[in-house]
């Protein structure tokens, strides 16, 4: 039994290493000297089969912060894209918080005619791939003259039904007795939502926000289709023409792109797991 346990641990450690390997590679690479990077990675930029293959040192041969200094001090366009991402992600999450939290509460705590059918529609919408909603979005954005604006990305994303669904699961789990008790005490429906729903459903709201942040920080399809003006592009579309001479800067920017979602992930892993579980609970 203990032997079996050990074997399982070993397999899991090996798999875990495999999964985090790309991250370790980006981090170690970002501290490598540019000329060493050129030497290591140049074969990747040649077509045709070469004798010597590309290399990646686990620990930088000549560690340096030079690439970091270059990106942080000398590349304004990178920072514009960074802010572009923030200007999309935070308004979206804000909007979801304001609109979808009460929406989820309404679905979870009230019964009314047509509710079940409506909620089923929300679930189907949540499962539709972007190809389906793309042309619908285009028609609306065109109608409201929102194409090629940030609002054109933000507004449809706010009304994504996935976050309603996730918060719904958590609001549904609040015991009825608590709410009835508050009603007895004379609280009105809106007070109940504010004073009981929001505090008790907070883990659900956090889960929806963590999942949302990861989703929208990496959002690619929507800005690619609807933002023609590259000055508005977010970091998820950051794709410089990688040449051997700029690999250092590229790796540093990769690390910087990665830091916000990684922090959110490490802080909110518990909520991420809960959110994923909520997305999988059956109706």
């Amino acid at each position: 039994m203990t032997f079996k346990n050990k074997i399982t641990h070993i397999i899991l450690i090996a798999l875990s290493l495999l999964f985090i390997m790309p991250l370790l590679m980006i981090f170690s690479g970002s501290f490598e000297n540019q000329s060493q990077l050129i030497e290591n990675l140049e074969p990747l930029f040649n077509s045709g089969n070469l004798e010597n293959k590309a290399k990646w040192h686990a620990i930088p041969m000549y560690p340096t912060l030079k690439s970091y200094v270059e990106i942080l001090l000398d590349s304004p366009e990178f920072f514009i894209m960074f802010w572009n991402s923030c200007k999309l992600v935070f308004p979206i999450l804000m909007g979801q918080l304001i609109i979808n939290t009460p929406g989820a509460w309404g679905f979870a705590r009230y019964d009314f005619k047509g509710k079940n059918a409506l909620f089923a529609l929300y679930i189907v919408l949540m499962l539709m791939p972007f190809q389906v909603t793309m042309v619908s979005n285009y028609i609306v954005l065109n109608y409201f003259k929102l194409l090629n604006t940030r609002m054109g990305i933000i507004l449809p994303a706010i009304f994504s039904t996935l976050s309603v669904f996730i918060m719904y699961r958590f609001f549904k789990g609040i015991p009825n007795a608590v709410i009835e008790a508050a009603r007895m005490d004379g609280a009105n429906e809106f007070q109940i939502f504010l004073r009981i729903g929001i505090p008790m459903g907070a883990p659900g709201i956090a889960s929806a926000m963590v999942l949302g942040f990861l989703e929208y920080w990496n959002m690619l399809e929507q800005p690619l289709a609807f933002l023609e003006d590259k000055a508005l592009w977010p970091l998820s579309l950051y794709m410089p023409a990688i040449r051997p001479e700029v690999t250092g800067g590229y790796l540093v920017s990769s690390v910087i792109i990665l830091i916000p979602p990684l922090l959110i992930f490490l802080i909110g892993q518990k909520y991420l797991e809960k959110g994923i579980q909520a997305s999988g609970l059956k109706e």
Partner: protein
Amino acid sequence: MKMLLKKSRKNQNYICRNNKKSLTGWLFILPSLAGVSIFYLIPFADVVKRSVTEGMGSEFVGLRNYTTVLENEAFLLAAKNTVKFMLICIPLLLVFSLLCGVMIKSIRGRADIYKTAFLVPLAVPVASIVLIWKFLFHENGFFSMLAVNISGNSIDFMNTDLAVYVLIVSYLWKNTGYDMILWIAGLSNIPAGLYEAASIDGAGRIKQFFYITLPNLKGMLFIIFILSVINSFKVFREAYLIGGNYPHTSMYMLQHLFNNWFVALDIEKLCAGAVIMSIVTSVLIIFFKNSIEGGR
């Protein structure tokens, strides 16, 4: 009489309160519903209408737009690639993530660190790791080097039919953690008593897995399958950042095609395509749900 009156008033009160309550429910939902209607439902109705009419005008053309799409060579290629990709990667993902989940569930001691490792890819932006995929899969990259050492021949994953494997690997890397968490939730719901009873009856761990674990996970399978399908559409991100608008043909996915139609403002095809996709997705959901519930 008095009694009756009292009762009816009580009833009335009840109905009144109930009506008020359902009205409050609507009020909570209203902002969300308004947005969903404006940005998704109403325009989708328009899309359905446009899919059976001619581009600018309103002339009814029946299913002509649909036959155009279904006979379109690029559509057939993209659909074939997408389906082929799903047929390979979704079963792989389901089995692999289940195995990981079972392993994590079975160990004693801290399992959180493993969960973190499997989930971390979800947080990694695709743009960050394009160079890593290139390093691994390029003709002069890591796997090719391994192949040279083993068989003497190099492999080029990027510009041959093997390109789809780049997507499969990145899909598995990205989604194993997500599915694993769902499987673990499913595993936790299986009553421990079932296993105890089985081991008293002398069933080994393998037998327990096939006769207790798997049947009890059936309900979970539906939702994990659907979510995996949805997430598989997102593999376009990798394909786009690695290969651009026109990658190697084996990597050409439906989203590439839709983007290219979009650039050409080919609204008729886009509308018909969107309706086809929504039908396929709905049928998939219904069919898979029924087949699992029927098997119970």
